[in-house]
């Protein structure tokens, strides 16, 4: 290597670093693109596929969702098929009983194939995305048990813990607790 090449090499390195620094310094004075997660959060798209919301009083226990599931993570126990009362849009109490409706979230793919065949649209994808727990049993969500408490979707651990001091978590917590559904009609497009 000649002395000329040696210094040309140094010049090239310094030049390319200067070009890079020009770009990075430009971004120093621009708005940040990240958010401070627990305090702030990004909003979800209307079609977001999170943990299911299940309306037990509209379910006719037809097993179509369990059959459509690629990983067989939906468990349904029933005494007999149920029927919908056309006047109220709710299930006729004279029919059979839905003993158990559970989804195993250690298996679930969140592919939304279970929501497509549902004739009464009683199962849909919610807006909660984080269901961590301390044991494997807790990952299996018993929706029939939740319905007795008036909930449509489980309350994740993080939500229970942060409901006191983070405003948006408190809002969500109260919504889930009162059994309100996150997705409004028309948000999730219907496939026919």
């Amino acid at each position: 290597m000649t002395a000329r090449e040696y210094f040309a090499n140094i010049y090239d390195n310094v030049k390319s670093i200067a070009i890079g620094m020009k770009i990075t310094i430009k971004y120093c004075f621009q708005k940040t693109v990240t958010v401070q997660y627990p305090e702030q959060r990004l909003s979800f798209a209307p079609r977001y596929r999170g943990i299911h919301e299940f309306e037990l009083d509209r379910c006719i226990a037809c097993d179509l969702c369990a059959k459509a599931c690629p990983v067989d993570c939906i468990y349904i126990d029933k005494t007999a098929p149920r029927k919908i009362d056309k006047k109220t849009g709710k299930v006729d109490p004279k029919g059979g009983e839905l003993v158990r409706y559970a989804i195993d979230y250690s298996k679930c793919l969140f592919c939304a194939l279970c929501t497509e065949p549902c004739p009464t649209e009683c199962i849909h994808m919610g807006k909660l995305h984080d269901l961590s727990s301390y044991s494997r049993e807790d990952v299996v969500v018993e929706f029939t048990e939740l319905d007795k408490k008036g909930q449509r979707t489980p309350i994740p651990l993080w939500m229970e813990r942060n409901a006191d001091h983070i405003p948006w978590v408190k809002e969500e917590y109260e919504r889930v607790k009162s059994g309100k559904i996150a997705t409004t009609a028309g948000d999730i497009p219907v496939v026919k």
Partner: protein
Amino acid sequence: MSTATPPVDPNLKSVSYGLAPGAVDDDIDVQSEEMLVNMGPQHPSTHGVLRIVLRTDGEMVLEAVPHLGYLHRCKEKIAENLAYYQYIGYTDRLDYLAAMNNNHAWSMAVEKLADIEVPKRAEYIRVIAAELNRIASHLVSFGTYGLDMGAFTPFLYAFREREYILDLFEQLCGARLTLSYINIGGVTWDLPPLFLEKLGEFLDYFEPKIDEYNDLLSFNHIFIKRTSNVGVASKELCIKYALSGPMIRGSGIPLDLRRTRPYSVYPNLDFDICVGEGLKGQLGDCWDRYWVKMQEMKQCIRILRQCIAQMPSGAFRAKLPRAMKVPPGEVYAEYENPRGHLGFYIESQGGPIPYRVKIRGPSFVNLAVTGELCKNVLLADVPAIVGSIDIVMGEVDR
């Protein structure tokens, strides 16, 4: 004791680590300075759980053998037990950086088998989704390649733009990584309102960023020194190893299934096939492969702009019965993934589930050339070569 032979550990000799016969010296610990080094499976620059056994002599790598199988999930066997539409969710997890492309390839294979006609609008939506995912995949490739070469900043910039694409996907189908959007007979949902406007906004935002990446990384002198003339794959080698995607285009062979065996609406779209030209060194080196990906992102933008302009109205999904019956027969559908040729071979004996599914994964085939490229290179060049092959282990092991 009069015998002078030193005690030899019998286990030491029998371990060959998959190297060629004769490669391991019997008295390896006594006479030779060669050393076997395990790179991976938890090495940060192997992009997943790839393990490479290196035979090194000081800084020189004499031989490299990739070991696979740490992420094997029986994907092909699972397909034999699922209905065709149910397997879409599993194809997401093959090449998890390009889920749309995998969905598209699987749908195309099943449609070819069952002779289903897809509506025109669905085809355009599919191409939009697939090309967006190609950009996202190339962004990850570009960012992590910078990371391998010691440049951290481009990685953050690449992920900032990728986030934009993932937001678009979230509006499109509700998921960000495992998309399950493209379905047999079309797409699962129609475009959401104002999606095309948002996509146009993104393209306007993204196009100047590519030049920024080029200033930041592509033409950086240190980066060029690390990647040019390293891991040169000649044209003959590429054909011999059946490489595809940016690997073969980086060596100057214009092989792109979107053009050579066009599918979907690609015949209506105008775009260039990017090939390596040996700008910074020999033809087919790591920098050329990297450069092909950077150029392809610009072509993706061109394709997307044309799709926005040509978007027809109409149905977004063909009307199919829920329990779809597929006639007996066999089919092989090829697809241009961001990493190369993705092929699905399906054998059907009629009924709702396939009899056998074989997946031809581009990463798996491209990875085979590692041993050839990593001969007599420096140890620090191995991450450069493996990074430029751009593998996704989820697809290699399946």
